[in-house]
């Protein structure tokens, strides 16, 4: 399904990044990092109108020849980025939303761990398992 899933911290430092193809990880680091431009712009635009009733799902951020990038930002400014292949046209917006919701739930569970220090890279196994399921497409 997704080729890359990333969790970005409040200060835009990466907390977690998983790619379907480990060899292309660096490339996806660039892709996710550049997607933050659009995320920031979208957050700045919504921040002015209604800060509290904001939709967390940011929609498609941008698309290249190969990939489409989707974003999601929690109320604590944690950003989730999912990259899917541009060729994969079967995937619908709704499915992306569901993935983000699952990701958010997994992240929330992970943060509830009292031994996790905020803004540190995520190493939790349960979280990793959930994300791997998303990347492999198994549900």
């Amino acid at each position: 399904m997704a080729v890359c899933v990333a969790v970005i911290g409040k200060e835009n430092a990466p907390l977690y990044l998983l790619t379907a193809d480990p060899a292309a990880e660096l490339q996806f680091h660039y892709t996710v990092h550049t997607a933050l431009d659009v995320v920031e712009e979208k957050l700045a635009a919504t921040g002015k109108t209604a800060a509290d009733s904001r939709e967390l799902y940011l929609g498609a951020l941008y698309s290249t020849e190969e990939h489409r990038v989707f974003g999601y930002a929690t109320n604590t400014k944690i950003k989730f980025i999912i990259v899917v292949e541009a060729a994969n046209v079967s995937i619908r917006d709704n499915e992306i939303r569901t993935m983000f919701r699952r990701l958010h739930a997994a992240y929330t569970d992970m943060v509830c761990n009292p031994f996790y220090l905020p803004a540190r890279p995520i190493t939790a196994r349960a979280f990793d398992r959930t994300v791997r399921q998303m990347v492999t497409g198994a549900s």
Partner: protein
Amino acid sequence: MAVPQEKVDAYLSSLDLPEELKQVPQVNVGFVGLDPKNVETHKTIVDAFTSSRKVDTHGIHYSIIAGDREFPPAKPKRTTYEWFLPKGILKRKWMKKHLYDLPAVVIIFFDLDWGDPAWNEKKIGCSSRVKAIRAALTTQQTRLAVVLVQRAAAGDDPQAAERAADLCAACDLPPKSLWVLPITDHLSQYAMRLESAFYELAQTYYHQRVKAIRAHRELLSKSHHQALFVRHQFKLGFFCEVRQDMAAAYKAYQQGYAHLLELPTTDLTLCELKVVAAMLSFKVCRLAFRQNLPRDAIAHFRRHVELFRARVGPQELAVEHCGWLAQQYQWFGEVFDQAIQMGLPAIQTQHPGLYFEQAALHGRKRHQTAAALPLDGAQYPSPDPLAGSLETDFFGQRPWRPAGRNVELMDTEREKLGVLAIQLCERSVNHHNLVIPLLSSAISHFKKYHCPRMKERLMVQMAEEYALSGDHDKAVILLGKVLLLYRSERWWPLVVQVASLGLRSAYLSCQLEPYLAMAAALLSAAVPTPAEQRARLDANVHRLMARQPPEPEPGCAVAAGWPAALAAVHQPVPLELSSRDTLVSCSASFGAARYQQGRPLTVRLRLANLSAAPLPLQTARVAVAGRGAQTAAGGPLPAGAERVLTLDVPARLAELGSVVWLETVALELAAPDCLPLRLEWKLSLGDEQLHQSMFGLPVGAPFAELGGLCATVVPRPARLTLAADHRPPALVGEVYQLEACLTCDDLGAEVTDLVLEVSLLGADEETAKNTFVVYGDMCQPLSQPLQLPCGSVQPLASCRQLLGVQCLTAAGRQLQLAARYSEQTEAGLCQGRVAHTVGLEVVHPFQMSVRAVALTLEPVEAVGADQTALLIAQITNTGPHTVRLRSTLLQMDETLFTVCDSEGEEEDGTTSEDGAPAGGGLRDLVLQPMESATECVAVTAGAAAGAAQPGSYTVIWNRSEWDDRPVSTVSPAPALQVVPCPLQVTADLPAHGTVRTPLAVRYTVTNRSAHVYSLMMLMEPSDGFIFAGNKRYQFRVVPGGSRQLTYNLYPRLSGRLTLPRPRLTLYRDGAPVEAAELIDAALRHLPTHICVMPQEKGGPHDVQGLTDSIRAL
């Protein structure tokens, strides 16, 4: 083998979109008969036309045509296309022909005035010229027109109409195609008018062409002439564009594109197809933008790229396909950019930068593909198969194939040579020079549309390109910038990549400082550099420090410049480190969070050598913000060793109350034969650790045991203690004595420049105005603080200062005593301050009241003239202190009253020596708390009547314990009224009587008026008395005179008896008259009762003494 540069250039230019396609097509108008080089007027005419084009909306291209010019002939018109097979899609020369060579309108200029004497000859000359041009254009439908250049404005030349018709007939022109152009000052306006006329004429020409093309279509068959469908649609679009019919042009090009997609493709025709598809798409997209349909343009372009991306063609020419794709993105970006310059708004996710970026991406792919081509030892074929690639009949056809025979493969050998030539040219192209401008325009667009991270990514790509092209200096600069940005966002994987790239470039260009900086970035503890790379880098840094060239980076050739670069270094090489743990783990902190003013700041520097070899640490320097650096000597730091250095930073007195923070830490590494190195850490306030420590977040473990990066300078503890010695509460009006006591401790030198400051805290203005501080002879209100210099105090000594505070109102006050002082400390003269607040309760000393009574002790408000009243003053000490009343003074309105001198009646006989006006009888009376004193003062009204001013009753007193300053407290005395009293009756009787002892009473009736009063006195009998005298007596009293009536009363009973009451009646003219007011006033103050004592059994007693004692009361 290297291909000559001119061949490469020619190859590259053959790949570009043709110039005539890129320009906006314009109406082509040809001028005949003008010679601007030799004839002045002709030059002005040409200038008028060409210069007016800037403002005019018509796009007209003017060309000057010689009279004998040959025009391209029209092809014979086909009636059927049945046997016609097109050899290609778009002819290369066609656009050029219509843009430049074949005018839509030919204008023949001829100098001829209406009134020209040689009219007929010139008319023939003109017509022959028209005929010549017409003959040259015989196969074309080009419009002809004649413009007569005349010396003056036509005016109303009578011959004009006739001669015009004559000329038209001679030249075989419709009358509408003849114009006159007078050479006057308004030439440009004439030119503009003519221009629109030319434009109209040209429109009809192009319209005709369009119609002709449409007519062709009927004759074409779908099976054979698909290429012609494309060609015709292109021509249609082109002519519509010239006619500025953008919508029709757009549609035509789109249809052409659709027809193109239907063409069958083989590997041989693909090249032509792609070239024509690009040309059509270019037109479609540009027109879509022009018509404000940016979405359509983008959609078309996406589809275009989608359709052709996969159609690579023969694998050996994949490099050409990459170039083609790059070119597509590039021209689309340019067209998009042009549209934005025309006012189209762009957004962050859709702007030209994205397309330039893609173009660059494909350019990079092109380079990679070209580099991967197996071309070892290949020779550039001769004759050049690519010669004439810009002269093929059709766009996109291979120059080595026979003209027009692109469809079937004729010669396999030549084909191979052609492909080889292309491959060799591609290999020789400097792709980096193509990619870098694309990246730089992409960067500028990303910057414009708020994509900083995208920009950073492109900067990395640009640096890669520079590195590949060998320009390592630029690569290092770019990577250095990007590295900072990535590091600030803590994207460590990207930091590693960028730093590794930078390290390679720095190694290859032998740049010492960037090399060290990049290595340091990779060695930082936060960066996930692999351990073996870390070890290698560490070793390389140590090699550099030993002035040895570093090991080459993996995959790099040995850079030869290192020994020279290392030999040139004499000054310490600065190396700014952003992470605490790079090479050396360095944590600096203040020893405490607070420092007292004037005490030195201690900075602890914990150093641990993280590298594998000892570091020759020479000195460590710590700079506190706003002052110079402090240096501490260090020694060599063995590998893995840890050391704590403590530095004392001298105090600065001026820093009191401010926050000081550590700014930089620098370690100088130097040893003989060693590269001097200065490691610097900037501990700015934005530093992460500082940030965390400021917000109370947990900081890394090594830091926890140390203080923070900032400390506060707090005042030293006060050397003095300040106490106030006083006896509260204060009494209103008194000078309250308060003693400030300053005691110095023994923790330092003597305290000098002591200043005691007295002020009121939080008092309103009214209270402040009514509070005075008395010091010596000075008395000032406390609305301003009082400063009292008190000299100096030795350690353990104390200084006392007596102050007087006078409060005129009873409100409580907060009095602040503050002492400022200087003390000599090790850092200089230090200021100190101590304060003490005294709560002061202020109460009234007395409760005082003064009331007026008549002699009969009845309260009165008015006194008759010449009568006496008593004022009774009562003073109660309500305060907690014993008070001595020194004297009292009653003051009444002097014009109306006389205050009886009480002196004579003093019992103890003491008189006021100071001669104060008498009127108060109390002298030196001590009142304990809650004791009262009362005094009675008689006042006699004068003769004049009237309302008196209120009097005053003043008590002069002081606290018995403080003898000095007497205080006067004033209480108001009642304002007695003096009423006129024309008739006055007084009674003269003893103070008391005795039973059965007669007592004499004498009533005196006095007339104070100017009239004679005739009165009748009637004595009413009383039970207690038998009296002797006139019971009823009528008499007269003359003005100023008086009459006495004497009675003897014989008391029958004892006790308080009612006296016989006299009654008066006023008579006038022998008859009684009503004068109740007069009579009442006269009788009001007569005594009505008398105390009668029982008769004593014994002998006689001193009645007189008793009487006196009663009077005194």
